Structure formats: structure tokens, C-alpha cells
């Protein structure tokens, strides 16, 4: 028996809803290891920085380790068709160029500003990914990371690095578990 218009519309609505949820689950599952990696790197980097300010030099090494780990996770988890896509490398390059240009036009006046800038940038990326993929959890992860960074920066300037190590790094790790839980 052919379907009525209402039945066809209901079926199309069901399909759209399920496809959207499935795509979100897929995105969350692939985003969660990145949050774990960066949560650990933040905890180590900011923790070292707080304990021994002269160990700030460890950041480039940690950042490089994080980027390599992120690329490795991305390459491992991407479907075969997306592997070797030059746009991932080009995106990373564009972000580095943007940061370089920004800091040359508006040089940060102190180390705390640099320490707050990167988490806010990361939070922006999470939120944008969430907005464009309709992934509420990604948007919330971005908002929480940005809010925690600003709270630490303005509210606890003397403990900001410790705050970012424990609360910022911890929030990313917990965010990773949260995304994985769906």
C-alpha cells in the first residue's frame, strides 16, 4: 500500500533526526582523544610553569608533542578516503600563521596573556565545530574552557597557571570522557 504524505513526512523527519544524532556521536567519539591529549599537555605544561617559571621553555616541546599526537590520532581514526588530505596540514599552517601575525601586530605584554590566549582560541574552535555540526556537547566544552580560563585570568591572577593546570587540564580530560560517554 502506498504511503500517505503524513507517513512519508514522519519517516523523513525520523531519518533526519537519526542521521544528525549519529553524525554527532561519530564526531564526539573522534574528538574525545584530542581532548584527553590536550588536557594532559595543559596539566603538565601549566603545572611545570607554575612550579618552575623558568620551565616555560618546555611549552614548545609539549605543543609539538600535542600536535604530533593529534595528527596521529586523526590519521588513525579518519576513514580511508580522508587520509592524506592536505587540508589538515594547511589548516594547521593557517592557524600558526594567524597566531604569528596576531602576536606581531598585538604583542602580548606578559606570559599570563599568552597562557590565556591559547585556551580561549581552542575554546573558540570547539564552539565553532559544535555550532556547525549541531554538536551541543562540543559547544558546551568550548564555553566551559573559555569561561574557566577567564575566571582564572581575572579572578585568580597569582594562581592562574596552577588553575589552568588543574581546572583547565582537568576540564579537557573530563570533556573527553563526556564526549566518549555517548
Amino acid at each position, binding site marked *: 500500500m502506498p504511503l500517505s*504524505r503524513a507517513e*512519508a513526512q514522519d*519517516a523523513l523527519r525520523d*531519518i533526519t533526526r537519526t*542521521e544528525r544524532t*549519529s553524525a554527532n556521536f561519530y564526531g564526539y*567519539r573522534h574528538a574525545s582523544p584530542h581532548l584527553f591529549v590536550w588536557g594532559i599537555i595543559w596539566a603538565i605544561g601549566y603545572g611545570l610553569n607554575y612550579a618552575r617559571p623558568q620551565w616555560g621553555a618546555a611549552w614548545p616541546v609539549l605543543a609539538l608533542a600535542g600536535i604530533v599526537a593529534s595528527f596521529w590520532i586523526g590519521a588513525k581514526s579518519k576513514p*580511508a*578516503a580522508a587520509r592524506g588530505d592536505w587540508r589538515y596540514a594547511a589548516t594547521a599552517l593557517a592557524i600558526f600563521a594567524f597566531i604569528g601575525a596576531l602576536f606581531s601586530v598585538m604583542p602580548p605584554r606578559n606570559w599570563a596573556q599568552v597562557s590565556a590566549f591559547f585556551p580561549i582560541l581552542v575554546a573558540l574552535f570547539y564552539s565553532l565545530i559544535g555550532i556547525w555540526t549541531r554538536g551541543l556537547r562540543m559547544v558546551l566544552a568550548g564555553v566551559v574552557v573559555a569561561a574557566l580560563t577567564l575566571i582564572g585570568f581575572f579572578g585568580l591572577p597569582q594562581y592562574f597557571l596552577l588553575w589552568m593546570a588543574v581546572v583547565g587540564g582537568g576540564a579537557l580530560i573530563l570533556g573527553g570522557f563526556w564526549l566518549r560517554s555517548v
Partner: protein
Amino acid sequence: MDQPDAIIHQPVRLKIMAALKALPDREPIDFARLKTLVGATDGNLGAHISTLEQAGYVEVEKDFVAKKPRTRVRLVRTGRRAFDDYIGYLREIVEATAMGEQSR
């Protein structure tokens, strides 16, 4: 298509196909995650997956991860095409009825 594809035209199987269609080409999904997405019981989901597998719409892969059994399901080309046709069929009904109402 005059009649809907009887294999796909069943609420649980429709959701399984939609969940798989949203993934990149040939990307599998875990049975447990599919169960959450579809909202079915283990037995019910297993039976519907078997129907889809027998129709040649999906592939089922069973293995062990850390000594625990894992079942993964992926959409194959025939299934993707059948699902696209099914969506086309639904859209035709919606559009044809809408055009019929306008011409009245």
C-alpha cells in the same frame, strides 16, 4: 518506485540505515552505540541487523577487543543506494501531494 522498500520500511531498520548513512563511506559503528541510537533491545536490534545483512544492505564484522567480543556494522554500496532510493520515494510522495494541493 511504486511501493516502499519493504526491508527498509520498518521503523527500527529505517533508523539503523539512517544512523549508518550519516557515517563516512564504509565506516562501521559498534553494536552498543547503534543500540543507543536506535533505542532497541539487543535481541530486537540483532534480528533487524540480520534482515538487513541478508538483503545485502549491511556487513557485520565480529572480533575481540581486549578479550571482549565486539560487533560492528557497516553500510555497503547496495544498502546506500537502496536507502537513497527509499528517501527519493518518500520525497516524491511529499512533493507530489504538495503539488496536487496547490493545483486544486
